[in-house]
């Protein structure tokens, strides 16, 4: 069973997407901010990270950079899940090593689940 770390400060999204992922058989760990997320990664083996970009204290970009700079976490696929849709943000995230970039409002729950499955199968 794949372990997913869902870094998202909106509790409602943790409930809807997190809930759907659990229904589909994934093990989901929620982190409401970057520090918590990085601590979880240190102690738990994670297969995939869902990362929001606008987060309290530490932004998604900073978290992504730290993940990719650390030899132990740099190979974990990161799916960006955000409401930002600027070409600049997309390019920056992809250059920094994100696997996929999804704009939340453009995808249904099941479409996000499919993207996650596809990423894990790669």
């Amino acid at each position, binding site marked *: 069973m794949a372990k997913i770390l869902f870094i998202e400060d909106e509790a*409602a*999204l943790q409930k809807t997407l997190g*809930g759907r992922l659990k229904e589909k058989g994934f093990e989901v760990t929620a982190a409401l901010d970057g520090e918590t997320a990085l601590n979880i990664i240190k102690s738990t083996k994670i297969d995939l990270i869902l990362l929001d970009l606008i987060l309290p204290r530490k932004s998604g970009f900073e978290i992504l950079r730290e993940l990719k700079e650390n030899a132990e976490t740099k190979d974990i696929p990161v799916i960006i899940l955000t*409401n930002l849709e600027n070409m600049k943000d997309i390019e920056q995230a992809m250059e920094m090593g994100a696997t996929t970039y999804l704009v939340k*409002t453009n995808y249904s729950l099941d479409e996000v689940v499919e993207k996650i499955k596809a990423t894990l199968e790669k």
Partner: protein
Amino acid sequence: MKSKGFLKELNIFYQCKQYDVPLFECPQFLFMAMGAVIILTTVASYLIGARYIVDLELVVLIVVVVTSILLVLAFIIMKSFERLAEANRMKTEFVSIVSHQLRAPLSNLRWGLDALITGKEGVTDTQADYLEILKENTARMTKMISDLLTVSRIDQNSLNLAEEEVSVEDLVNQVLNENKFYAEATNIKIELNIEKNIPPVSADPIQLRLAIENLFNNSIKYIKEKGVISISLLKKGNNVLFEIKDSGVGIPEIDQKHIFKKFFRSKNALRQETQGTGLGLFICKSIIEKTNGKIGFTSQENEGSVFWFTLPLKTGQK
């Protein structure tokens, strides 16, 4: 009609009222004032110069004074332009911030509804109907915000388009497949005429698709009851020509020159279809032109419209 428009241009009070700024901050008014100062002082300098030709210092002094007045006026005009530009920038930024902020609750709504509709909890048929209505409206709001964001990017000159090899035929088919049920539901017949083996174009597939979708949806929207939409895709020289003809309400001649303008909606369009932001065609035009293409239309009120665009084929590029 034309002379009336010209007179309107000359009426600075009307122009300044549109900007919603005081007269002394309005560029048009200040330009007029500057013109008046130039004419008056030139005449005055001539008269004074002619009378006191012996007194050269006086003439020089007059020229210096006039030049300083003109400089001050030019400075004020520049400032007022700055203020207008700033107001415009703030408006665009405002749209961008608001749209981004609105997206957060919308994604909550969308996924919350998704969880209910496709979840395990199960809902009654009536509840499912209502949930579908909520879902459709959430989608509509999402589309509107996405349009507003695209427009603010166009205004900020930051709409960056990807450059990929794209088959226009594929995009047309995708759009048709996903939207034709609207047409079928409203008794509209679709005729297709797609030439085989048209080479690809270099474009942003998502944005180009959006442009085609906007044109297609407009055709459906503005057909009263039943009608016909003919879509053709042809190779024309080094270009691909997309054409969509509908038997809809058409665009009155008086509105035709404004049809690609932001937020513009034709009067008869408003009668036919109250929903719409007037952004679709503005976005279409920006996307097509940024892809090095051309867009245009012909239309006859009550008979229908033909919208077309051309894009350079990849093989046609050197």
